[in-house]
């Protein structure tokens, strides 16, 4: 099963070659056709999104992303199937939040929630309520938002922060946080709900933390960070100390919410610049800066393209087209980047 280092090198070289070919200079827009392909590949009839990169499991994050894309594509039937499955299979905790992980063999095997999954689901419901003028979606969203606010929003060092899950992210006085769980546009939508002031503070805190959580030569945010009682941030123990698959979403969410300050996008543009915009490594160890041989996926490159534009680095990244067997996460990131770019007016 182990992929040899050499295979990987060949893989990234091939990627570089593909990127150098002309004809793919523009990121693919997210449209009806894109959604149909996405649904064919990842949406099962019962209404769950399959994480093809992870042995076919499903999780609250996937359901949230699927629901967001379904709303964006105007596919209400698919949206209802996704939401129905999510309610039946994941919202079994009794506190209004979703269990984060479901496996075909064992069902819910870990009842802990993942706050970003819950946020994505609630945000998708709010957007659906808007698009299809359906109060029931809004009510459901409000319930999730309320549950999140009461169980996951906590105050630390004068900041309002979001715990990544109900259980296991407090180490004494120190919190373990995930910068990529700051889904800024969702947070803004929650802040606009009645009694949503604390969500506004969460946004403010997110920007402060992203300014503090800059490590290593590229000044990148870690996938998992700590915040102690004095407000000092660190790279969390017990996780791979790296910038990678999680934190790549940081610039995506910032851009999607209309942030344009190059300061917040420069670290990602610097990383891309260092690797010539082609075989960007998927992860960077922090603070050391060792990069993996694994290349960033198409979806990650799509995020970088966005980040580079906002950092003022121009079109430094060429995003190759999605491969026929592109996995769930990469495909999702690519589509989300397109949605974010559309909302910023960068791309059609």
């Amino acid at each position, binding site marked *: 099963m182990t992929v040899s280092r050499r295979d990987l090198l060949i893989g990234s070289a091939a990627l570089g070659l593909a990127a150098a070919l002309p004809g793919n200079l523009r990121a693919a827009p997210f449209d009806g056709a894109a959604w149909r392909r996405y649904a064919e590949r990842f949406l099962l009839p019962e209404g769950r999104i399959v994480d093809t990169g992870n042995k076919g499991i499903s999780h609250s994050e996937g359901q949230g992303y699927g629901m967001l894309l379904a709303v964006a594509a105007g596919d209400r039937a698919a949206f209802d199937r996704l939401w129905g499955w999510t309610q039946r299979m994941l919202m079994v905790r009794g506190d209004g939040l979703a269990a984060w992980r479901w496996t075909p063999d064992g069902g819910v095997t870990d009842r802990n929630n993942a706050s970003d999954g819950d946020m994505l689901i609630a945000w998708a419901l709010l957007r659906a309520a808007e698009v299809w003028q359906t109060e029931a979606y809004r009510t459901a969203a409000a319930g999730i938002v309320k549950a999140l606010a009461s169980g996951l929003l906590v105050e630390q060092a004068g900041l309002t922060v979001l715990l990544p899950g109900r259980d296991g992210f407090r180490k004494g006085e*120190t919190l373990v946080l995930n910068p990529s769980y700051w889904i800024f546009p969702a947070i803004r939508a929650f802040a606009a709900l009645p009694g949503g002031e604390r969500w506004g503070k969460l946004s*403010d805190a997110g*920007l*402060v*933390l992203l*300014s*503090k959580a*800059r490590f*290593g*030569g590229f*000044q990148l945010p870690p996938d998992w960070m700590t915040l*102690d009682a004095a407000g000092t941030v660190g790279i969390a*123990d017990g996780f791979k*100390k790296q910038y990678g698959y999680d934190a790549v979403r940081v610039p995506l969410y910032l851009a999607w*919410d*209309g*942030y*344009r*300050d190059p*300061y*917040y996008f420069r670290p990602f543009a610097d990383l891309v610049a260092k690797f010539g915009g082609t075989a960007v490594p998927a992860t960077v160890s922090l*603070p*050391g800066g060792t990069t993996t041989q694994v290349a960033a996926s198409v979806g990650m490159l799509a995020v970088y393209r966005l980040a580079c534009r906002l950092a003022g680095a121009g079109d430094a990244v060429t995003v190759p087209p999605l491969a026929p067997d592109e996995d769930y996460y990469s495909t999702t990131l690519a589509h989300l980047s397109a949605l974010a770019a559309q909302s910023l007016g960068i791309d059609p």
Partner: protein
Amino acid sequence: MTRPVLLSALLLAGIAATGAGNGAWAQSSGGARALAPGVKVEVAPAPGSGSAPAAGKVDETALRYYARIGDGERLEAEIARLRALDPGWEPPKDLFAPQPTTPGVDETPFWNLLSAGKVAEARAAIAEQRRKSPSWQPSDKLLQELDTAESAGRIRSASDTRRWQEVVDAAAAHPEAVACNRLDNAWRLAEAYAELKQADRAFDTYRTIVSTCPKAKERRDTIFKASRYLSPDQLRELTALGATANPAKGEDYSTVRTAEAELETGRLLERLGAASSGAKPGALSAADLSRIQGIVRDKQDADGAIALGWYFQKQKNFAEAQSWFSQANGWAPSDKSAEGLVLAYNGLGEKAQARAAAAPWKGKSSRIDQALKAVDPPRGAGGGRSGPQGPSELDRALARQDFAECLSIIRSSIAKSGPTAALLQQRGWCLLEMKRPSEAEAAFAEAQAMAAREPAKGGQSAGAGGRTPAAAGLPQKATAAQENAYGQAVARLATGDTVGLTRDLPRANMTPAQKAEIRASLMATEANRALEDKRYNDVLRLLDARKELTPEPRNLGILRGWALYNLMRFDEAYAQFKSVDDRLSTEESREGVTITWKTIYHDW
């Protein structure tokens, strides 16, 4: 504009100062200075990278901001900086007049955050503002100041975690972050070079600091910092430079000059110590020895004299040793110098002199009591002390540390001729040695009651009787009552009765020295308990308080290390363990160093 008059005065003062060529900023007219190859120190912040204001059009954003908040010092500095950029520039006359709101956005809130050290908050606020008004751009000056503040933070954290190359890189990217006004960072840069084995660049960095930063104290501190990495020759050069280069008015650089001599003494004494302890015999040349004797004499350095005394004592040159210990004791009387003196006299066979030297400290200092055992067969505090005849049976038992025998003798003595306060007190001490603290406490209490009934012997205990009162400035001699109270306190400590003892201590009849000792022990016990309870901040609080009373022994030093470790103050924990380990490396200290190191660098 609440205080226009005062602010105008500040402005005038600022211009005057600049004209006089005084202060750090006046030196900056040359612009950037090379701190090291590839790294430049900006004594004054440089104009923004790539967007320097065009000639004749200087960026007055910061100037107006400082004027608005009334920060005279920085206003003055900014005026100097702008003058340096454009000699023809004059401060605007309307500096203190209310400004029409500039089109776009008022930067004051961001500057306020920056001034308060809230750099991340300033960044967040700016990003939010830019989201709301996409056409607005913060001023170059604001961005520059933010970059500098962030780089300074980055240099600090990289150096704290020993990522030396990142220190160098960060300094190269933002040279303003290692300027004289951020001297600590300049030191960190030099240290990074030294750790990266780029000795020349380290030296260049130190040299730039001592020749450009104007304050004498800063130059002196730099020389001490540099002593860790530089050779004696380089230090000499650094000192010479620091004492003469670019003198600022009103600064006295003589303290810079003496830094080298102090370092020299320290180094020699260290080698002397090594030679005395036999680690490196003969490591000291005759020239070194005579130099150090000169320095110690010049400075009347008691500790130095004691070190010399031990050096000679080790060589059995008792006369020379005695003379140095005498010197030390004359300059600053202490039980440490007296201890050496006692042993030196003893080496010379002058036992009477030795006893006389010990007298002020006898019974007050375990050092002295120990030293006296070399002079006389150890004598207990029992009945026989004042007798002219040879040591009693009890004294001999005590000399052998045969405390069971001590108990036997005292019991039969009491059975034969009844108890005395002195006997009961001695019984208390022997019971303590036998790990029978509850009975010891009772014995001291009994002794106290007995003493109260022995009016003839009055305040002085039998054991301590007959000596002349202590000289002024020396520790107060304990009375028998105080000695008994002290014995009870020691016994209560041994039984774990810390709460009761803490409560009773303020009222106890003990000498201040005795009280301080018990108090320190109580705090050590409580610190241990706090560690077990995982109240780590309490551990530090108690140890800090204890340290005020008496130096911290190594076991408590290790305790302190673990408390810091558990507070996740890993760098401090590492430094703490390292300092204990550097003095005497034991399994415990090595464990602390290793575990902390592995935790910091995830080297499991």
